[in-house]
């Protein structure tokens, strides 16, 4: 009854609302940002934008649009469409005059919008993302602000929220989202028995306090930081100590370091008045750029590439802006001038690193995790009753924990500073004017002046007057949970990016995060996962799929495939093979012979000893010229460039991994052995055990029966084989466990 009501509502409401929207449009004035700029972007800006300003006309900047054209005419005369060259050209019938000269003409609606916009006064309006957010009023109708904003949009779209997910489903979702690992059956049962708000909040508390929390969110951050254990390019030398930066990231998330501070440290920890070792370690963020040690390469050329990468990555990560196009010319679609790119580059142009094989400058540093381990060993050494052998052992262990040289950011001294120049068409050999570091004008709404160095840039990024940073960051976090950002193009909040589906929600989250929550990620996550929106069932009925196939409007919960790391980690946890050790150097789990045939053979893939090869995917050695193959197959990037969004794919090669890769083979074996140990007689119980470990819910009758059938059929085959290493029962149970680990409901978060 309830479900069919939803269906009916879904079918009829859009008609009602479309009707209303139609009436409304007549009355409201035309908006430059919402109605006109998209038309100009699609049909005009490739000739009248940042790259080209044919006839002296560009639609990117306010001052350019209203100025006199080369023909001495005016493109736009407010209030007078007939005198505006723009309107005359788009309506012209004359060959050579009509615009655009090639491609599709503007349709009638578009022409009429432009006419009305000019007639109404041709007011300029800034792109939404460059306008400082204001705290929106929370709509009535829901207790939780997230639900209030989402509910308002659902109503407008003729959709209604889905019921809450089953407790076991919800608890698995929460575990995977907050710590990236699945819950044990005990945890999911306990919650299923007592699915109260209090119990839910308690699980949130536990997960936010878990050390695995930092690992899960480090996985997210390291794609942005383009973290790897090698230098990249031809020789792709190993970076043995970058893992200390990864330790730093995990620690920062675990300590819930406010993200403004997290930002300042990574971009400019070395410029603090009295930087700690941890502040210096954080600056390795921008030393994750590639180093090219190929013979015959010009170090300055690749130093410049690294510097530009730092500028691009900074603007992408914190400003959601696509800056790399501005290297060669003004931005084609966004209001950023060519010179402004080099002003941002200037912040990074003065560091001492210079594409050296050694990765100098480096400093001997420790991560907090290593310091803790060291302190433990030193405490142990205090014990007077230790044998001489034990003392020697401890002293050796302590020696192994010496500080390690980590590549860091370090500015050149004033007398050897570089002069920052513009490169003509992005060519580093063609230097032009000197340019002082400065933020791009359009993005700069702070009204303040910051020091012209990296620290100043970082302060500007996290200043409350910066319109982008809060929105961009909360949007990234939202995407991690829902599989899709409120702004879908996480990396592009510019004119060509997608508009937010829930602009008020985005602004509310951003302001709440940067002010009330004091930039604390754990608080932000608690807010989101406490909403009913997050807790919805992810099942979709036919009508809902038809109305919203991509779940833009959030009338159901998220459902998408786990990440490369999570697929691996989950199999290890479910099977009991998991090594929960947090922090430390990268490890080398099993990898087939011959995959690592990189140019220089000096570094070999050496499978880590038992236990170490069952660490989380986050710790798998990342070599850029030859990344771990199963990571790539599940859409992890090669970490050469910053990647905001992994595009999820679904391929037969992925099926081969989870069916045949030794780590998944081992997982099925261990799960089967565990099931048989737990329930030594009844196959049905063994299957239920394995199923519940993998899915957090016990199997229903259909699932149980179908898997028992598989067991029986395969058992018959194994019983006919003489040379099995183990019992036929174990072999058959392994095939059942392999099937379970390959079920869609296991491979996805739902």
């Amino acid at each position, binding site marked *: 009854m309830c479900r069919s009501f939803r269906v009916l509502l879904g079918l009829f409401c859009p008609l009602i609302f479309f009707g209303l929207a139609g009436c409304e449009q007549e009355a409201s004035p035309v908006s430059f940002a919402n109605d006109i700029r998209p038309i100009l972007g699609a049909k005009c800006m490739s000739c009248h934008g940042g790259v080209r300003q044919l006839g002296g006309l560009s639609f990117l900047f306010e001052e350019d649009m209203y100025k006199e054209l080369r023909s001495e005419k005016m493109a736009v005369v407010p209030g007078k469409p007939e005198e505006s060259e723009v309107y005359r050209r788009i309506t012209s019938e004359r060959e050579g005059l009509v615009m655009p000269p090639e491609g599709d003409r503007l349709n009638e609606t578009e022409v009429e919008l432009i006419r009305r916009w000019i007639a109404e006064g041709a007011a300029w309006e800034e792109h939404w993302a460059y306008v400082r957010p204001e705290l929106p009023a929370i709509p009535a109708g829901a207790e939780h602000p997230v639900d209030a904003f989402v509910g308002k949009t659902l109503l407008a779209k003729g959709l209604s929220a889905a019921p809450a997910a089953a407790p076991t489903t919800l608890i698995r979702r929460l575990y995977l989202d907050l710590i990236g690992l699945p819950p044990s059956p005990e945890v999911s049962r306990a919650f299923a028995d007592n699915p109260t708000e209090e119990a839910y909040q308690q699980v949130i508390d536990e997960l936010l306090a878990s050390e695995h929390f930092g690992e899960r969110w480090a996985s997210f951050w390291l794609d942005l930081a383009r973290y790897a254990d090698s230098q990249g390019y*031809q020789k792709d030398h190993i970076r043995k100590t970058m893992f200390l930066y990864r330790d730093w990231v995990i620690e920062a998330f675990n300590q819930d370091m406010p993200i403004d501070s997290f930002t300042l440290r990574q971009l400019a920890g070395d410029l603090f008045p009295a930087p700690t070792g941890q502040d210096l370690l954080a600056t390795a963020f921008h030393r994750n750029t590639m180093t090219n040690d190929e013979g015959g390469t010009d170090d300055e050329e690749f130093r410049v590439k690294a510097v530009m990468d730092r500028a691009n990555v900074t603007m992408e990560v914190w400003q959601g802006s696509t800056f790399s196009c501005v290297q060669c010319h003004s931005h084609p679609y966004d209001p950023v001038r060519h010179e402004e790119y080099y002003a941002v580059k200037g912040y990074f142009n003065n560091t001492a690193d210079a594409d050296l094989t050694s990765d100098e400058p480096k400093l001997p540093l420790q991560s907090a995790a290593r310091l803790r381990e060291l302190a433990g060993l030193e405490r142990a050494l205090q014990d007077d009753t230790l044998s001489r052998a034990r003392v020697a052992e401890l002293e050796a262990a302590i020696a192994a924990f010496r500080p390690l040289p980590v590549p860091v950011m370090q500015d050149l001294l004033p007398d050897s500073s570089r002069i920052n120049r513009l490169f003509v068409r992005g060519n580093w050999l063609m230097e032009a004017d000197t340019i002082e570091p400065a933020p791009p004008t359009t993005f700069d709404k702070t009204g303040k002046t910051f020091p012209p160095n990296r620290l100043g840039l970082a302060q500007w990024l996290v200043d409350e007057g910066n319109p982008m940073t809060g929105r961009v960051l909360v949007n990234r976090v939202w995407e991690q949970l829902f599989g899709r950002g409120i702004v879908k193009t996480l990396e592009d909040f510019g*004119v060509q990016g997608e508009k937010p589906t829930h602009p008020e929600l985005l602004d509310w989250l951003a302001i709440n995060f940067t002010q009330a929550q004091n930039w604390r990620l754990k608080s932000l996550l608690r807010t989101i996962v406490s909403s009913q929106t997050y807790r919805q069932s992810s099942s979709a009925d036919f009508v809902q799929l*038809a109305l919203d196939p991509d779940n833009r409007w959030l009338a159901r919960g998220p*459902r998408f495939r786990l990440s490369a790391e999570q697929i691996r980690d989950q199999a290890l946890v479910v099977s009991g093979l998991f090594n929960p050790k947090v922090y430390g150097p990268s490890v080398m789990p099993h990898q087939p012979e011959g995959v690592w045939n990189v140019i220089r053979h000096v570094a070999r893939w050496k499978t880590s000893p038992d236990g170490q090869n069952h660490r989380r995917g986050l710790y798998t050695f990342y070599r850029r010229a030859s990344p771990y193959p199963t990571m790539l*197959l599940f859409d992890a990037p090669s970490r*050469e*460039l910053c990647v905001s969004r992994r595009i999820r794919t*679904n391929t037969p090669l992925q099926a081969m*991994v989870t069916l045949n890769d030794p780590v998944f083979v081992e997982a099925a074996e261990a799960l089967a052995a565990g099931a048989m140990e737990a329930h030594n007689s009844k196959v049905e119980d063994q299957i239920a055990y394995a199923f519940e470990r993998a899915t957090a819910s016990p199997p229903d009758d259909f699932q149980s029966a179908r898997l028992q*059938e598989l067991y029986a059929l395969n058992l018959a085959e194994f019983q006919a084989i003489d040379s099995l290493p183990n019992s036929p029962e174990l072999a058959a149970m392994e095939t059942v466990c392999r099937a379970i680990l390959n079920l869609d409901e296991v491979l996805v978060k739902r």
Partner: protein
Amino acid sequence: MTSLDHEFFRRQQAYLTRRQLFRSAAFGIGGMALGMLGCGKPEPPKDAISEAMKRALHLAPHAKRVIFLHMAGAPSQLELFDYKPELAKLDGQLCPDSFLKGKRFAFIRGVPEMLGPQFAFQQHGESRAWVSELLPEFSKQVDNVTFLKAVKTEEFNHAPAQLFMHTGGTQPGKPSFGSWVTYGLGTDNDDLPGFIVLVSGESQPSGGKSLWGSGFLPSNYQGVEFRSQGDPVLYVNNPEKVSRDVRRRTLDAIGDLNRREYEEVGDPNVLSRIEQYELSFRMQMTVPEATDVSQEPDYIHELYGTKPGENAFANNCLLARRLAERGVRFIQLYHRGWDSHGSNDFENLHGGFKARCREIDRPMSALLTDLKQRGMLEDTLLVWGGEFGRTPMQENRGGKTNPFKGRDHHGEAFTMWMAGGGLRPGYTHGATDEFGYYPTEGAVHIHDLQATIFHQLGVDHTRLTYPFQGRDFRLTDVHGEVVREVLG
């Protein structure tokens, strides 16, 4: 209808079907349609793909597939195809200033000596093309081949130049040629990957696996390396103890449970997953079958000079033909060891370089013969070349004299050849000056080469784009002109 007319027709049909399915994607069943593309299915962005398809199919195709023989390390054009008798006269003399002024080199410092051609040249075939004595078998093929004598690149370091050739950009992280092609055209055989990579030589090429990475395209378009040791495709073989029957039954159970899941949750991606598992089962048959060159008759082994089981360029040439027959869209070969600086015997024009020539001469010629005798040369485009060329000067790293004959990297002008796929056979395009230093006519930039290959595949290179970071990217960036002169 010729086979190419048929191809065009098929693509239009496929496009129309896809477009309908894309439309119906709004009703929740469209997810299945994408299985046809590349290898497997990307989830988002659906709109971008249908748009790419629409744009990509504007031209009538002349080739259905590409076999790209990349000679990693950059062979010397002056020892193989670009015959320069005038250079011989300057041998041992100091390089004129005009060659050095304002130039950057990878290794040459100060004033190097000129180095004359190290091997004898002869003209061959009706086309009277010059080929050196190092390629006796290939010399018989010149009338099947189109030479580009003045190819030009912007990079003179290996990794960036290889990336430039294969991704159109100089930094890692861009989609490779094969990824673009399978993204635009899909594949003819769903049971094999659409983009397959075969590597021979001592290690992978300098550009690393990024050379066949999918960059910002969905990862199902990445090149799949067919390996010469272990599983031909990673994890294609069942674990020990798992027979094909056991696997079949396991997949049946997974399929049944997943279908039930679909009925309950309605997510079309579940159906797609069922399909991908079935595809993996079929690939477990098709991959070993396709890669088993031992099935070939003796005369074919004789032709290519292959010994089954070897990691050799010859085996990869034969394998390339087998994959081409099976409808694989883009087959990328890499053969390493061409970096002939003269600094050691491996990099000696009279040592390692000569050995490389022996390794490739017979197999690449056999590939031409074999494709031709099977009628496949007309719709298969073969491309051969390094990432740049070599200088007419002897390399003198650090201003010192190298112990062996060798040349430095040179991007201004070098030779590549193409064959089949509707090009003008027996034609030579472009020329260099009397020392082989600069182009004098018919310069072809890497982006032009890429545009031309796309053109033969029926793709307008300016229209096959993908939105990333706020703009539409394409293989040829904002450049590239189709080289009309070489079209048949």
